[in-house]
């Protein structure tokens, strides 16, 4: 809070508290101290009950589960290393920290397809793997590395890029997406001892965007214009 905002907020609060006290003195003329004590007890019991209720509420429906990505726990701190290490790995399926967004298969008639890409697909890493056989199909899998806001992993909420195959042209289009997230933060009286107190609270709230990865598995004999320098070939050897 800024140095100007603080006194204003305090002033508003003072007014609120004055009002509350006025209210208290009005209420008190109708209430004996016994009733007040009972109300205090009921209030406290209600609050304790709320903890119990919160504990037993079923956890389905939450958009963000504690761990939404596949393949084991990728901590927020490891997001970047994970993203980089993918490139050296060959087996995407067993790669920890990668979340499979979508999988599509397109049939091709031609033996050779010229793969074309929509303009500016820069935020994807596109990997190409040639299959053992010629089955006339292109498998397109899209993956995502972990996306974090603070401590929360929201990778699962990301929409996969749109993949269209038409007239020998493969179009991978990013989807414009707006995510609204509601996250819980521990009270500052708790977070103080997690090394994230009120003073450096802001640090705990940074978001980190991961990467979208696209894996194309193409028939063995398919020709691809190797001139596309954003393509990365995964060689089986």
């Amino acid at each position, binding site marked *: 809070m800024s140095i100007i905002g603080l006194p204003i907020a305090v002033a508003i609060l003072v007014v609120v508290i004055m009002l509350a006290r006025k209210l208290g003195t009005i209420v008190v003329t109708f209430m004996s*101290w016994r009733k007040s004590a009972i109300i205090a007890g009921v209030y406290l019991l209600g*609050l304790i009950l709320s903890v119990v209720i919160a504990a037993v509420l079923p956890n389905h429906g939450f958009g963000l589960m504690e761990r939404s990505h596949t393949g084991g726990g990728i901590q927020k701190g490891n997001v970047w290393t994970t993203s980089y290490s993918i490139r050296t790995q060959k087996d995407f399926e067993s790669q920890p920290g990668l979340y499979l967004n979508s999988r599509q298969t397109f049939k091709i008639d031609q033996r050779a397809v010229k793969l074309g890409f929509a303009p500016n697909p820069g935020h994807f890493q596109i990997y190409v793997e040639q299959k053992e056989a010629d089955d006339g199909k292109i498998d397109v899998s899209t993956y995502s590395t972990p996306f974090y806001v603070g401590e*929360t992993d929201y990778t699962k909420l990301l929409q996969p890029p749109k993949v269209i195959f038409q007239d020998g042209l493969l179009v991978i289009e990013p989807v414009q997406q707006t995510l609204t997230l*509601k996250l819980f933060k521990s009270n500052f009286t708790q977070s103080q001892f997690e090394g994230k107190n009120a003073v450096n609270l802001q640090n705990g709230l940074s978001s980190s965007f991961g990467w979208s990865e696209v894996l194309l598995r193409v028939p063995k004999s398919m020709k691809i214009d190797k001139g596309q320098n954003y393509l990365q070939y995964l060689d089986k050897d």
Partner: protein
Amino acid sequence: MSLNNNLLSIASRQYVYKLKANSSGVYSLIFIQVLALLFSLSGIQSMSSVSETLRVNVKYFSADIIISFTFIWIFFMSLRLTSINSKTMDFTLVTNRLSSHLSNIGLLLTTIIFGSISSSLMGFVLKIIMYFAFDRSQIGVNGFYPVFSDILLGIITTGLYMTLIASMGYLLGILIQIHVLFVVLYPAALFGLEKVNPQMLKLSFDFFASETSPLLFAIRIILSSLIVFSLSCLLSNRMEVRK
């Protein structure tokens, strides 16, 4: 005539009396906490991150506002306990200054226990409201479910902060009794300090707020509060009992 009335028995009688007398404080506390809860429903902090294709708007929810409001409430509660009116009420019946201070501190500690538990648990009311009233697919499960040890730690820390704040309010109240000008002087001194040496205020704030060891934190708060309360008692000895 009997002169065997000892300090503690009188102070505890006063404590019970004051507890009943100030029971109406619960209404203002509930009012303030519910108000803070309503404020909290729009989030305590929001953040957005944008990339070319993705925009993430995040709202954070916690009981921070509720706890902060409760802090201010306890400040005014302790301030009120030093008012002339409260003093007159004390001296209407059996008392001396020390027993009056002791019973006030006892009352404040009880209030603090109530305030710290209620403000910390109010966060779960917030969560339950969010669970049913908001689109759950936007809500993160992280931190939704209660963890007993965390709650306990939160309550104790809240209580400790409240103790410190209550001691400050009590001191201010006594100072105002000595001279009304302290109403202005107290905050003015703080702001003056901020202007002259911003580091010092931050340091004293960090002294409590940056301590990450619960034990050290508790020791710091308890010692500081004791010092401030003792100072209040000493200062009040300069005055006449009741005018």
